[in-house]
């Protein structure tokens, strides 16, 4: 480790330049999760859009209702609901697959005691 990496920035905390490495890793996670989410979201978006435009009225009303629910509820509440709906599953699954890169926040707010 060179001198620049151990230099302490005096900005109220003992934040070190070496910590930027961890932030960089987290940024990569953010990019990966965003690209995956937008890709999967676009795939389903095209299918749902096609159904809404072409299929019969009952199906579109039902689909609209479901999509409306997802749009009208805060994402953080949806994440907590998904997380708590599968209590057996969550111990085995990685946080990554629950669409969130700030894993610790989610574990704290949803009452989880264990880390990812």
């Amino acid at each position, binding site marked *: 480790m060179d001198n620049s990496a151990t230099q302490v920035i005096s900005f109220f905390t003992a934040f070190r330049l070496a910590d930027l490495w961890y932030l960089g890793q987290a940024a990569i996670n953010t990019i990966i999760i965003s690209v995956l989410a937008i890709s999967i979201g676009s795939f389903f978006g095209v299918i749902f859009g096609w159904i809404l435009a072409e299929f019969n009225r009952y199906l579109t009303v039902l689909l609209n209702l479901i999509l*409306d629910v997802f749009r009208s509820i*805060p994402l*953080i*509440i949806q994440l*907590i*609901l998904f997380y708590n709906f599968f209590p057996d599953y969550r111990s085995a699954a990685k946080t990554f697959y629950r669409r969130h890169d700030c894993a610790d926040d989610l574990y704290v*707010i*949803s*009452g989880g005691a264990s880390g990812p």
Partner: protein
Amino acid sequence: MDYNFHWRPVFRKLDQLIAAGWVTMEVAVLAMLVGIVLGLLLALMKMSNSRSLRWVAVGWIEIARNTPALLQLFFFGFGLGAFGIHLSPFLIVLFGLSFNNAGYLAETFRGGFSAVPHTQLRAARSLGMTATQTYLRIVIPQVFRIVYHPMTNQLVWSVLMSSLGMLVGFRELSGETQFLAFKTFRIFEYFLITAIIYYVIVKIILGLSWLIGRRLFRY
């Protein structure tokens, strides 16, 4: 799945959740009103001839639109706290949401201003109106008509984003739900009812905005 649902603790506290829903609506509407005023100012600043005003507006808009709302709330909460400025959770959420709303609405308003033909301004001025009269009587009414639906979207967005208040200790709907859920450990049940309350709030807002829009923009 061996989970047993227990709804009674949730229904016992339903009045508290509904009261917290009102708090959510209050903070969202207040943040929206502040956001509209600031957004209008930022839009005008961004279109002005002064370079410094343009830079201030561009800086605000870029930060508001390109950083997560959570980070903006943390700035008003923990960031200002590091400088000895301690705000209440309500003010943290209000300032954070207003900052975010202003950034998004500024671009919406700028689009609205651009959509009003410049010839109307010149026509109004040639009729003897002052610049203020031209803006208040000719331009802004048309801009509000154009941006009305995007503004409604932003209000819905504001309601949804207010849920982040739970992470800075604000007891709005999500914060209250978190507080009650961890007292009883009926987390799924509480958050499911909260999700329904959010859905109802959003539907009420959309319904009211549709009624108001129909009344305001009949012609």
